């Protein structure tokens, strides 16, 4: 038996350590351990609730806006504040474009190199690469000239020995299967993708005032206003700029990312068999279309044992059964006690021990819904919307599965998570433009309300702000007492997925998904990375592989 530890050491948004035991080339046990105490919620205690979102968006370096949105919603929920339609549409666009940006970067820059061999791209025929690319998409950037230029640049880089600087892949690993032309196509798109994640970021900056940290939220709405004639607001010119940016990102997502994803999925079909793990899912409704957060474009849902058809649909953010049934267990986490506490009662009292296989081993708490481990993320959202009868989702999921030659049930897998993310990006690119149209129409109808001004009253109030973020269900839980924050807890998507075992010994989604994974070469555990990366963990960082004696055997750069 071999034990492999993947440990990133120093990161702010990630600090994940994965341990696996491998027997006869197969993973037989797994542990997921967050390596840094995330006690930053305590910073919020005693501060004014209306400022919480400004601090909350600094929780994480990658997904800033999602914490801002969840935080502001928690206060609005606590005080039962309605959010004007204009504000909902503006927030929806910010969320949708953030998703597009996040998914593009995850696919190309954080996970593609698990499947794409950069060195093999040097052997490709640029002409055949162009033929391949043009056979799957009519995107204008797929010319022979383009591929030839990328290849010669890459060649020059490799010849001067500089590939090592950004080498992160296991080039030449036996599990790499794409032909050279597909590799060259993917490398070219990997370089191009940066231009499009940028456009999505620009949308956030125009609507939110600043990127990466938006400035335009307020309890009860947004501080952004639309006035076609006024230069100081979102005017005609900016609306046109938003439309162009969102159309360009849509084209990239739908004509480059999505077809690339289908091509990779088709080439690595066996990866629909691995990485299933926990098949209980949770997604919350997203893209509100009324002022009370009761009508949403995408329903949420709870799925038990992979039974998509039997999903319990969640149609609004006031679902008492959902709000009441989330608890966090610390039996295997480095906190005082063994108990499961509701986030409003949540405590964050550290109690560090060593890494104990059968005891405490992670800074991540174990969130449980109705006592069960659940997986969150794009598959959960798609399954819930599929079961909830969203025709757009149903058609896109069915079409994608047909093109790859799999069934919907195959999406409970490593490749399924990657595919679901591409489908979600496809959807979000369309929703972005839809909400721009809705905003313009609503403003044209004479609605000039962007915020319901809210005074924080005296007394005690509790609220939860749900948001279906790129990595899955996010919730911020606030207790307000006499105009100050009394308690604040964030249950983030990666907490659900990276969760350690609970008091019953039930594994979290990362851990469970690794069981049964193949590992061809324990010094190069590429397959472990593939499955962990499929969740889009917030670990955009350098990962080191060490053996149990602590000797470094392989350096793995994950970005």
């Amino acid at each position, binding site marked *: 038996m071999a034990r492999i530890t993947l440990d990133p050491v120093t990161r*702010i948004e990630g600090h994940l350590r994965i341990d696996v035991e491998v027997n006869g080339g197969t993973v037989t046990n797994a542990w997921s351990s967050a390596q840094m105490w995330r006690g930053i919620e305590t910073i919020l205690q005693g501060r004014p609730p209306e400022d919480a979102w400004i601090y909350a968006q600094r929780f994480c370096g990658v997904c800033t806006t999602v914490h801002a949105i969840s935080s502001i919603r928690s206060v609005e929920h606590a005080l039962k504040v309605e959010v004007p339609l204009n504000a909902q549409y503006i927030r929806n666009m910010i969320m949708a474009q953030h998703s597009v940006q996040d998914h593009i970067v995850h696919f190309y820059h954080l996970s593609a190199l698990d499947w794409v061999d950069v060195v093999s791209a040097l052997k490709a025929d640029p002409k055949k690469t162009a033929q391949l690319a043009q056979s799957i998409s009519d995107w204008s950037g797929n010319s022979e000239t383009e591929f030839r230029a990328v290849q010669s640049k890459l060649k020059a880089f490799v010849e001067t020995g*500089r590939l090592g600087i950004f080498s992160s892949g296991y080039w030449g690993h036996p599990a790499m299967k794409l032909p050279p032309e597909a590799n060259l196509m993917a490398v070219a798109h990997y370089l191009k993708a940066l231009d499009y994640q*940028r456009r999505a970021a620009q949308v956030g900056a125009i609507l939110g005032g600043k990127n990466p940290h938006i400035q335009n939220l307020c309890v009860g709405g947004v501080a952004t206003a639309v006035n076609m004639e006024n230069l100081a607001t979102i005017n005609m010119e900016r609306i046109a700029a938003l439309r162009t940016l969102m159309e360009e990102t849509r084209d990239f997502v739908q004509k480059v990312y999505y077809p690339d994803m289908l091509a990779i999925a088709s080439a690595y079909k066996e990866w629909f068999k691995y990485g299933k793990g926990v098949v209980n899912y949770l997604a919350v409704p997203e893209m509100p279309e009324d002022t009370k957060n009761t009508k949403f474009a995408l329903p949420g849902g709870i799925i038990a044992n992979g039974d998509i058809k039997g999903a319990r649909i969640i149609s609004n953010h006031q679902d008492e059964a959902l709000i009441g049934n989330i608890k966090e267990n610390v039996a295997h986490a480095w906190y005082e006690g063994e108990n499961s506490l509701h986030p409003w009662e949540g405590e964050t009292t550290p109690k560090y021990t060593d890494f104990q296989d059968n005891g405490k081993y992670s800074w991540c708490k174990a969130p449980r819904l109705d006592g069960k481990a659940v997986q969150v993320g794009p598959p959960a959202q798609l399954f819930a919307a599929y079961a909830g009868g969203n025709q757009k989702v149903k058609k896109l999921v069915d079409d994608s599965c047909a093109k790859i030659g799999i069934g919907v049930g195959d999406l409970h897998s490593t490749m399924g998570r990657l595919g679901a993310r591409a489908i979600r990006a496809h959807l979000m690119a369309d929703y972005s433009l839809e909400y721009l149209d809705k905003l313009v129409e609503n403003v044209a109808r004479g609605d000039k309300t962007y915020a319901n001004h809210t005074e924080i009253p005296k007394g005690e109030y509790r609220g939860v702000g749900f948001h279906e973020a790129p990595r899955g269900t996010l919730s911020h839980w606030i207790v307000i007492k006499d105009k100050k924050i009394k308690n604040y807890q964030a249950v983030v998507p990666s907490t659900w997925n990276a969760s350690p075992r609970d008091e019953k010994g039930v594994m979290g989604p990362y851990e469970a998904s690794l069981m049964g994974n193949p590992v061809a070469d324990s010094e190069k555990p590429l397959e472990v990375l593939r499955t962990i990366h499929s969740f889009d963990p917030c670990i955009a960082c350098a990962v080191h592989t060490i053996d149990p004696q602590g000797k470094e055997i392989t350096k793995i750069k994950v970005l």
Partner: protein
Amino acid sequence: MKTLIFGAGNLLLSDEGFGVHFINYLQQNYRFPEGVELYDGGTLGIMVTHMLEDADHVYLVDVIEAEGEPGDIYRYEKDDFMLGRLPIKMSPHQIGIQEVLALSELRDRCPKKISLFGVIPQSYEAGVELTQLLSKKLPDLAELVVAELRADGYCVETI
């Protein structure tokens, strides 16, 4: 010509936020002309590549993990990045800054000059203030950067 001063860091973890505090310090104490941009990049890596690519000269301010005393500030130049001469665990936000720059190079968009000022932190405790030790470093580093900007011909006014 465009110069970008990029502050990286997590504002909620005391000294971790040094780069962001540095940007705030500059904004409060100096007036910069067109052509100099101050940017609070938080802890994003690859998602802000375009900010770097838009500039000719980049000053990057971040915390680093290196041998030395808390408060020590080290300087690295473009070749240190491009030739991989930096310590691997240089910064928690490295998010592969070397990889990001290599990518930019492959895209023909790499800034001509990049200077990293890396400070060794004293504390990563939760908190929105710098430790006194690092707080005292802000004016010195600001003077150094401003002097270089002035030498490059930028008219930077002290407020």
